[in-house]
């Protein structure tokens, strides 16, 4: 029996370790280091119907214990990915979570439909602006979020999880998405932040503000996973500053059934693999399993 094996919405993953969207592209860059099938799953870079050029540089900068990014959702559009990247990724034997976004619920649904043949799960990034809703992100408007979920659920037979933003209260959004039929949740996306360059006296990032990620945000993420777990029975994919076995277990205790590694991959490209190996070693000498840790802080 594999103590790391975990069922998440009907899919059995060999371990709970996933790459976080946007930090691993579609996996090709890292495939020569280790077999991608060794990881629980790969979450792919956010994909929209058409190519998006993204934000002006600089797009990343470091902060104490973390980093800011404003990539601006750059991607080549869903057609390129269903041609080249997603089939390749499946051939590697990897399990795939496709991160999807769009300007409207219809765009979300369109991308969801196109990528479904290659996806074990779909993850909806609601942190992108809702172009028909005053430009605020979908994640700031429970009704808009629910519309996205309904549109996507109609367009796919894959399990759909919604990625929650820590920049708005999560419970109203989560409730609305549940009512709309969402299957699970992932969190957290990045926290809005800024760094200012003392020489130019301007924000460092081309987009001025960016998303904070990395160890610095871990306590915020653990708190939100813990809070969400108390309000829902849907499974949770937790992330935010995870790098070590201890980090992963802390998220499990809070209620995360699976965990994603994002920024840590920039600190160390082997980070996701090392986490899998570390968890294997941790549970090798024990009688309990990963599953037993999930939500244990609530029992």
């Amino acid at each position, binding site marked *: 029996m594999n103590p790391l094996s975990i069922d998440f919405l009907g899919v059995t993953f060999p371990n709970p370790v996933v790459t976080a969207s946007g930090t691993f592209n579609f996996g090709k860059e890292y495939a020569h280091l280790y077999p991608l099938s060794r990881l629980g799953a790969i979450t792919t870079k956010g994909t929209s119907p058409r190519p998006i050029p*993204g934000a002006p540089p600089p797009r990343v900068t470091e902060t104490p214990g973390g980093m800011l*990014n404003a990539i601006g959702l750059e991607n080549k559009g869903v057609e390129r990915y269903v041609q080249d990247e997603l089939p390749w990724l499946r051939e590697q034997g990897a399990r795939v979570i496709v991160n999807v976004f769009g300007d409207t619920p219809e765009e979300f649904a369109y991308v969801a439909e196109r990528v479904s043949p290659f996806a074990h799960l779909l993850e909806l990034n609601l942190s992108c602006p809702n172009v028909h809703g005053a430009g605020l992100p979908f994640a700031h408007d429970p009704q808009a979020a629910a519309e996205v979920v309904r549109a996507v659920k109609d367009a796919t037979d894959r399990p759909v999880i919604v990625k929650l933003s820590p920049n708005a209260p999560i419970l109203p959004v989560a409730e609305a998405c549940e009512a709309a039929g969402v299957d699970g949740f992932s969190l957290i996306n990045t926290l809005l932040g800024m760094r200012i360059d003392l020489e130019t006296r301007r924000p460092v990032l081309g987009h001025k503000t960016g998303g904070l990620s990395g160890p610095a945000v871990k306590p915020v993420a653990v708190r939100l996973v813990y809070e969400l777990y108390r309000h829902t029975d849907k499974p949770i994919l937790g992330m935010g500053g995870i790098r070590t076995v201890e980090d992963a277990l802390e998220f499990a205790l809070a209620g995360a059934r699976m965990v994603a590694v994002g920024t840590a*991959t920039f600190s160390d490209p082997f980070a996701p693999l090392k986490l899998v190996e570390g968890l294997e070693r941790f549970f090798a000498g024990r009688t309990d399993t990963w599953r037993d840790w999930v939500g244990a802080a609530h029992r």
Partner: protein
Amino acid sequence: MPRREPVWNDHAARLVHKTVRGAKGVLTFEAPTLAPLLEPGQFVNLEVPGHVLRRPMAPASGGGRTFAIVMTARWEGTRDLLNLPLGAEVRVLGPLGNTFPPPTGRAILVSGGSGAGPLAYLANRLAATGREVVVLHGARDASEAHLIPLFARGGARVRYFSEDGAHGEQGLPTQALPELLAAGPATVYAVGPEGLMREAARLAAAHDAPCYVSLEAHMACGVGACLSCVHPTTRGTVHLCVDGPIFNAEEVIWGDEPAQH
């Protein structure tokens, strides 16, 4: 310049020597699995203990068991890197990015600031193969004498320039370009502040000489995965870490030029 197939890995490196002069310095790392693979122009992504992101640096030497970097401390990451104690072990991603293409005619290297690193490596490599190499290195003042041993290794002819005349000839390194370019076929390699690279590129173009430059961007992954290191070129937006950092200056769109779509 074509992309390379990924051959990079995460290597162990140990700081075995350093020369520090104020905020500038040369750090030499022993990295027996990485150093032999490094080509001039390529870069590495260096772990700085206590920091979340690595720092991209273009080696000033390589090929053997060690590689050196010429560095300037700017903010905290590079400050901590310069303060790394001898013997410290860090992880280094590499080799990353593309390399300088071989020259047509003589090689004229125009260097400023930490451009000295990759150009010293190129100069020594080319000189060792018997190429005629001239290096024009510019500094603000006399603070860069610590670079002399780097350039002195190979057989390149090196001319130092400083704005205040305290170290070598007075003025900018690019002022020597027109005469050198007029003397016959040459290839220009310019690495340094954007102004220096643009001026070198302009002069090279005026003499129909090819000119290669190395671009910088804030980077997270260094390997093409995060999409952070974009730069506009005449063939669209490129990702410097995998499409560069070396570009033919002709295709570079500089800071205040309108980007083409």
